[in-house]
Structure formats: structure tokens, C-alpha cells
């Protein structure tokens, strides 16, 4: 409205800077969490195991968004599209080509990486709100594209595809759900370690330099275009793996499971977990899986309102998400040790 050009002052970035050390948990804590994840399923019912599997899967998807937004500062509302592609790659390969489920996962990672990388190219010109709109467009288009007539032979159209659940291999005495849980856990741990190392590497530093100040990063010799598209590719690849695992766990893919609502949930998961804090992704995933159910059980008619109020409570108490809780906890432990 004014003729003068707007100047955005320093320190006004969309995503605040997170030092790279602060992006992960310490080794000790990580091992304790891992041990818990390994042991708990042996003592609980199949349904809870299934929910834990979904928790890991959504955790991976939120983690992928966290690398993109928390790492490289790019905002995406299109994660559901990558998730859908991953899910469909696995489902189609398993049901039409009889490929082993475990093999479909690297394939969908590669395909989604390519898809994300290519999508990142035109998205380079956009940032902030504009990038949000572009990714949003992708998310709204995806279910419609999956329903297209000429793909129907492969995708099953609106009906979707039913996926067979794999049995435990080598005659291991465990239920399908439990096997799938351990399989998902293995994939999750591998990807988590990969992500932590990625963010600690040269590429990770480049991502963060771009997030904190694009112009400064490029003047220091960071190839901004390359690393921005790379961040999109990696994020899409991990989301694709989550999608594949999700398809196998739910045993069903249909276009309408992957609407913009999923992308919004993943976004909320990231905020609740703490933007840029990788372990928080799993806390966020727990929030988006369990809180809607909780809201439903408190009040059927007003479940949306209850969910909204709970979400407001969380962002009032901890605007920086679970990361804030972790930092507080760490300080507390530090103080106790000193005494």
C-alpha cells in the first residue's frame, strides 16, 4: 500500500535458527528410548502394536517435513502427496508385480526422491506463503490424479488397492503385526540415524545456512538451488518410505486417504514436536494419532472443538513444542547434578 519498498530486518526469518547440536538427543537417552521401543511390544496387545507401528510411520513423515522446514527453512503443505506416491508405489509393485514388500521400500524411496527433487526445481522460485500454496496445490491435486481413468488399471481408481500383510520370515514365532512393527522400527532407526548424520554433514550445514540467511549462504559459496532441491528430494524420499510402510501396515491404499488433511496433520505434528528438533517428530506423531481419538472420547459432537482447544493449550504452554520441554528437562538435570 505504501510506495516505499518493504525492508525485512535481520532476525525476522520464518523458521528460527536451531543450532545443529540441539537438533538431536544425546546417545544415552537415545539408547534408552530404543530399548523401550524394542521391549514394550512384547507385553501389549496386537492393536497397541499396530498403533505403535503407525506412530513410527507418522513419526518418519513428520521427520521428513522437519528436515525440509526445520533444516532448510522451506515450508511444505504437500507432504501428503509424497506419502501417497510412496504408498501407491509399494501397493502397485506388491499387488501387480509380486515384488517382495521389503524391496518396494527402497524403490519408493528412490521414486519419491526423484519426484521431490523435480518438484523442488520450479518451487525454487517460491518461498514462504507462495511455496505453501504451491505445495498445497500438489496435495489437492494428488488424490484427483490417482483417480484418473487411464491409471485405473494400476491404481484401482476410487476403490483403491488392498495390500496383503506380510508374514514373519524364517518361521519366527511372532504375529504379523509384531513382525511389521519390528520391521518398521528397523527402517525408522536407519532413517533416523541417516537424518541425524545428514544434518551434521556438510549438506546439513548448507541446509541450515540457507534457512538462516539465503543471501549470506550463497555469498559464502553454498549452491542454494542445489541444496534446496536436495532438501525437497530427501524429504520426499523419507515421506515416500513412510507412505510405503503405511500402505503395508494399513493393508489398503485409496486416493481419499491422502488428502490435504494428512498434510495438515503432519504439519501440526511438526509444530507440536518442535520445529527443527528431530526426536520431537515422534512426539508430534503421537499427538496427531492419539489426541483426535482422545477428543472424540471426551465429546463426540464437539470432537473438533476439543481437539482445537487441546492444540491451543499445547501451543500456549510450549510454543516451541516438545523441544522446549526437553530443554527444560535438560536444564533441570544439569542443576540437580551441580547440587
Amino acid at each position, binding site marked *: *500500500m505504501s510506495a516505499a519498498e518493504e525492508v525485512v530486518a535481520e532476525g525476522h526469518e520464518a523458521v528460527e535458527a536451531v543450532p545443529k547440536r540441539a537438533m538431536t538427543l544425546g546417545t544415552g537417552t537415545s539408547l534408552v528410548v530404543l530399548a523401550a521401543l524394542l521391549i514394550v511390544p512384547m507385553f501389549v496387545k496386537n492393536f497397541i502394536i499396530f498403533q505403535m507401528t503407525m506412530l513410527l510411520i507418522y513419526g518418519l513423515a513428520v521427520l521428513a517435513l522437519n528436515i525440509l522446514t526445520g533444516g532448510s527453512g522451506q515450508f511444505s503443505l504437500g507432504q501428503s502427496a509424497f506419502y501417497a506416491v510412496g504408498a501407491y508405489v509399494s501397493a502397485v509393485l506388491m499387488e501387480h508385480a509380486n515384488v517382495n514388500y521389503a524391496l518396494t521400500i527402497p524403490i519408493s524411496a528412490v521414486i519419491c526422491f526423484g519426484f521431490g527433487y523435480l518438484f523442488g526445481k*520450479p518451487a525454487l522460485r*517460491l518461498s514462504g506463503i507462495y511455496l505453501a500454496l504451491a505445495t498445497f496445490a500438489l496435495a489437492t491435486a494428488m488424490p484427483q490424479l490417482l483417480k484418473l481413468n487411464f491409471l485405473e488399471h494400476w491404481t484401482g481408481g476410487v476403490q483403491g488397492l488392498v495390500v496383503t500383510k506380510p508374514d514373519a520370515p524364517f518361521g519366527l514365532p511372532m504375529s504379523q503385526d509384531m513382525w511389521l512393527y519390528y520391521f518398521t522400527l528397523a527402517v525408522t532407526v536407519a532413517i533416523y540415524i541417516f537424518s541425524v548424520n545428514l544434518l551434521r554433514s556438510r549438506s546439513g550445514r548448507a541446509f541450515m545456512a540457507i534457512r538462516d540467511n539465503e543471501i549470506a549462504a550463497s555469498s559464502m559459496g553454498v549452491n542454494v538451488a542445489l541444496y534446496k532441491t536436495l532438501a525437497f528430494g530427501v524429504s520426499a524420499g523419507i515421506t515416500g518410505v513412510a507412505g510405503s510402510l503405511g500402505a503395508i501396515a494399513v493393508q489398503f491404499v485409496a486416493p481419499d486417504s491422502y488428502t490435504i488433511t494428512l498434510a495438515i496433520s503432519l504439519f501440526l505434528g*511438526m509444530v507440536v514436536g518442535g520445529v527443527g528438533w528431530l526426536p520431537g517428530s515422534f512426539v508430534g506423531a503421537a499427538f496427531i494419532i492419539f489426541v483426535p481419538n482422545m477428543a472424540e472420547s471426551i465429546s463426540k459432537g464437539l470432537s*473438533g472443538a476439543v481437539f482445537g482447544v487441546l*492444540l491451543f493449550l499445547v501451543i500456549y504452554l510450549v510454543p516451541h*513444542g516438545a523441544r522446549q520441554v526437553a530443554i527444560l528437562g535438560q536444564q533441570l538435570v544439569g542443576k540437580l547434578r551441580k547440587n
Partner: protein
Amino acid sequence: MELFTNQVLAGIATGAIYACMALAVVMIYQAIDHLNFAQGEMAMFSTFISWQLMQWGVSYWAAFLITLAFSFVAGIAIERILFKPLVKAPVLTNVAGFIALFAIINSSAGLIWDFTIKQYPTPFGSAPFLGSQLISTHQAGMIGVTVALLLALYFFFQYTRIGLAMRAAASVPESARLVGINTSWMIALGWGMATAIGSIAGMLIAPVVFLEPNMMGGVLIYGFAAAVLGGLSSPFGAVVGGFLVGVFENLAGTYIPGVGNELKLPIALALIISVLVVKPAGLFGRHIVKRV
């Protein structure tokens, strides 16, 4: 050619809806620098209030004015109570707050007025406008109101003290505070105005899309798209963007084979993104210069 003109006219008619919504989006973006995802739901709630008033026997224009006042106050109240505490929180946390507000309003409206579709009256009648089959008097009235609103906003921002203060608070908050502008209240005022404009949009749209808690879902997406296309810093751009999106959408549906109702939205969005790739600040937006 006949088909083309007809489709363009029909596009302008739907475009008026988007333009209205886009105007509200840009207003709040100017004031608070975020896109408010709950804006559509707020407009829907206001529209329900006016419907309820009419059910109680209040006349259309009285209900219109009461709703306008209610929305203005409600917008300010939402800002003061819910979002002022979040001023220092990260941007993405604010966005999560909008999503929470969306869920709360949508679900409460569903509980109060249930999810059945309701008829909503129009003050302009629905006879064909000037003998055209495509634009009804209601749609013409809607275009008229949108344009009038735009003019009023232009005069408000350009020629009143408070308009100037709001512009100052939005573009350089620090300096604005130094010259004695209460920037925090300017934001609240922005919320109030945006909510009021949203309620006008809601009341104009309701006769076309019918009144129900989810009526704004589709409209808001187009409103956002229109606002972004026109440039988020320009109310004029938002209105032009709204009409363009309406026309795009109709022409894509007519001329591109295989595009049914389902694919209209993705195509319209894809087109907008292509425009943005060429002009990243939107058609009428200002370029933002960043300091390193």
C-alpha cells in the same frame, strides 16, 4: 465465441465470490503478516449468526448490520484473547493456532446449527441480470458490493489517519511505535476489519453455495489462491486475482478435455503457480527487499 464469452461471464460471476474472500484474506495479511486459515470458518460463523437473526424475525439489512458489528467485535476479541499471547511465538506455531481455531469454530457451528444445508436469502433477487442467462441480479449485486468495498477500503487506508496508522504499523512496526502508534491495537483492529469483511463475503456467498458449516472450505482455497495471485500486499490485486481465478477455473473446465469438476481446482492452482514462477510477488504485489 459465444461459448467463450458466456464462460468468461460465468467466471466473473464466481470470481466475485473469490474476490470478496481474497479481500478479507489480504486485509488480515496486511495487519498480521500471516494467512489466517480460520478466516473462512469465521465468515461461516458470522453468516450463521445473521441467518439465526433472520429466523428470529429480524429484517435482512438489520441482520446484516448487526452481524457486521458482531463480527468486528468478535474479530478483535479473538485477537486479544487467543492470538495476542502468541505474538512472540514462532510463525509456524501461529499457523497451528489458526488450524486449532478452524477446528473449534467448525465443530461448534456444527453442534449449534447442525450440518444440514440451509437456504439463505439474497437482497438482490435472483432474476437474470440485464437479460443475461449467466449472471443473476444477485451475482451482479455481489460484484457491485465487492467493488464498493474495495473503494471504501482504498479511501480508508489512503485518506484517514487511522488507515495511515494501520499501514505504518504493518510495514515498519518499530518506527510506528516510535511515533506513538499503538501497533498492538492496530493488529486487533485489522482482525476486526478482516472479520467484518469476511462476514460480508459469507453473507453474499451463502445464497449461492448454501449455508452449512463446511460451506467455506472450497471458497477459502480459491480466496487464498486469488490473494496470492494478485499479490498479498495489494487489496486491488486481490480483487483482480479473484476475478481471474474465477475465469481461469471456468475456461479450464470448458476447454481442456478430461477436466471435470474434480480437476478444476488443481488446474487453476497449477496455472496460478506458473504465474508466480514468473512473477514471485504476485501480479500487483510489491517486491520485498531483504537485508542481509
